[in-house]
């Protein structure tokens, strides 16, 4: 076994242990501290930023487990995304370094606020405006939506524009002029773990302007790419976990004097679900590998889009069938399928819907057509 495989095995073993005890639960604040102790919060940060310097493959191996165990979590929202932005800030930047330390230690909760409208993918110029200058100080105005993180963040990394150039700034949630509006709560913490942010003349110190121009743009692109791979893996985990639970159920649930898993229609549909899970697994692993080998190359985005779309579709397909195969029990909250299903919908809709990502593959086709 080579070094990377050993590392992956260690990571997945430790994830199984941690999550086996927390199956079908939501992350608690003591869980976050435990993850800090396990070094998980440091995984996505480069070594010179105090992190473990791991890439999409390792991060995804971990998030896949979150999905498999039905574990509601903020890992991508409050570890992966902020870490990948901070990774682009020079290591000697004091504000950046301070945020890295707080992230790794779990003492502060960070979040990334980039999106302003549904359907955006991250390459748009932000509408939020940063005005003023370094001497007298900056002001931030505007709004962000679909900001992820169930636990309230203490610091936001916010994408904005300054004189037509993209920038990335750090904003404290307690700063005057910052308003946080949660999405309507109906089911539970992780099902409403998204919010809107409103900035009204928020004062920003010069030092909090972390990235400018091309560096800001590239950092956001890279962070979203890594997050999408991790999310695809989490979705495949959801599909695999839900399928395994369902397979166990149909082996034992008896009707007409036999396990319902013995009926041929059920057997065959289960096989189709297994194929859907295998396709999903191959798609995210491929995307992660390609990203490692070609980090930052925009030509890699089709792989990532294919994976996000495939994994979301497979998760939804498995969860729908799982409800059906559980019969009326599947419709109860207690049975646990609902949890997987909500996670599948939520993770499917976040960071680009399947249809939106398929359109990227479609663009590949259009390029082929224009050369024909």
């Amino acid at each position, binding site marked *: 076994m080579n070094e990377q495989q050993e590392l992956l095995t260690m990571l997945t073993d430790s994830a199984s242990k941690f999550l086996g005890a927390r199956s079908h639960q939501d992350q608690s604040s003591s869980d976050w501290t435990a993850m800090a102790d396990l070094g998980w919060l440091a995984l996505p940060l480069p070594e010179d930023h105090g992190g473990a310097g791991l890439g999409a493959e390792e991060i995804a191996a971990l998030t896949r487990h979150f999905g498999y165990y039905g574990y509601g979590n903020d890992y991508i929202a409050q570890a992966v995304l902020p870490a990948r932005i901070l990774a682009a800030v020079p290591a000697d930047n004091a504000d950046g370094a301070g945020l890295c330390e707080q992230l790794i230690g779990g003492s502060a909760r960070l979040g990334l606020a980039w999106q302003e409208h549904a359907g955006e993918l991250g390459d748009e110029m932000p509408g939020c405006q940063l005005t003023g200058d370094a001497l007298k100080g900056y002001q931030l105005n505007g709004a962000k939506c679909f900001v992820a993180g169930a636990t309230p963040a203490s610091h936001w990394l916010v994408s904005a524009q300054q004189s037509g150039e993209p920038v990335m700034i750090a904003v404290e949630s307690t700063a005057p002029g910052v308003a946080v509006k949660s999405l309507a709560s109906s089911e539970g913490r992780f099902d409403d773990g998204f919010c809107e942010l409103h900035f009204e003349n928020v004062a920003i110190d010069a030092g909090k302007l972390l990235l400018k121009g091309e560096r800001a743009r590239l950092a956001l692109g890279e962070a979203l790419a890594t997050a999408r791979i991790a999310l695809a893996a989490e979705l495949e985990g959801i599909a695999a976990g839900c399928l395994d639970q369902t397979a166990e159920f*149909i*082996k034992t649930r008896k009707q007409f004097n036999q396990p319902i898993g013995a009926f041929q229609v059920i057997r065959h549909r289960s096989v189709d679900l*297994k194929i859907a899970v295998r*396709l999903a697994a*191959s798609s995210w*692993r491929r995307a992660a590998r390609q990203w490692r080998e070609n980090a930052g190359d925009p030509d890699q985005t089709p792989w990532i889009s294919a994976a996000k779309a495939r994994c979301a579709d497979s998760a939804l397909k498995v969860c729908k069938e799982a409800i059906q195969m559980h019969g009326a029990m599947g419709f109860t909250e207690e049975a646990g399928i609902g949890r997987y299903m909500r996670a599948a919908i939520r993770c499917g809709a976040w960071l680009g819907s399947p249809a939106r990502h398929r359109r990227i*593959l479609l663009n590949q*086709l259009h390029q082929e057509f224009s050369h*024909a």
Partner: protein
Amino acid sequence: MPDTSHQRDFNALPNDEFRAQFRSWLEQHYPKQWRQDHRRPFLRLHGPQLRQWLKTLHQHGWRAPDWPREYGGMGLSFGKQLIYKEELNRLGVARIVDNGETQLGPTLMRYGTAEQKSYYLPRMLASLDHWAQGYSEPNSGSDLASLSTRAELNGDHFVVNGQKIWTTFAHECSHLYALVRTGRFEKKQQGISFLLIDLNSPGITIRPITNIAGDDEICEVFFDDVKVPAGNLVGELHQGWTIAKALLGHERIWLGDPAMAIRALALAKQLVIETGNTGNAVIVEQLAALHADLFDYQSLYADICDEVAHTGAISADASMLKVYVTELLQRISEFNISVAEEHALAGGDSKIGNTVTNLHWQFMMARPGTIYAGCNEVQRDILASGMGLPR
């Protein structure tokens, strides 16, 4: 027996070099007029053309990539066999049915007598004998073990009576290997034997069956008191089922080869262009979904091939490949009919824009995949048991 171990060991070559050599040789030696194209995306070679091509491969040392070198093959590792196939697919080398190389040869290597090996294997390689597979019968398809063509041992020969069906290219073959019933026991699998039959023997009648693609490739073979030497028995008497079930080589993987789907999708893209539909959002989105399915399928295929290359083992799960890709091929072939609209009124060749294709042929030729080599219903049943689901 021709031992090619004195010839160069292709496994020793770096993959890139092996690929480049084979690619260059193919480009020089594979006739352009036999390449797959939009008109015949799944073209198959048979008869004199097939024999000529196999002879050419043999002459230049590219025959039997999966046979051990001690038996005259190339002895390629799985990884290099994959490259070999990729290059055939890339150039559009027509599909071939070479049961001698893929099925019977490996069977004889494992179960045959020294005489059988030394007689038949060289003749296979030299394209002197061409072998058809006689398994299915009118009443024994998926339930192959119920077969009833019987072979009665009468001193130094068997007398064979019965009928085989779906025997591909039997009318162009010299020999047939068949599963025949030699006994009746409690379990139907127990009384089956594996027999080698010369198709020139008196009492054999071969009748090609016209298929819905308009070709005469599959045949019925009738046996009327056909005498077969006892020495043509492979393995022990009544051991035939075990021999046939011994999954040989990498068939499970090759049945999942995405080549046909790739050609069908290339045709699909061409049809979208030629019908002026590149701006039609609905059609392009349908095409994009098929494109995504093939894109992701190729990742899965590569992962499973990697597993095989590294572990040397093929899991039962590999059957998923055949199930998925044969159904994907059908979906693409249906899309091709759908996007072509009135052009599909023509049953033969039609010219759509600048592209000549045969819409009915490509659609019909996608149908058998879900039926042969273990129909997808049976495959799903086996895969379900593999998931631990009860019967």
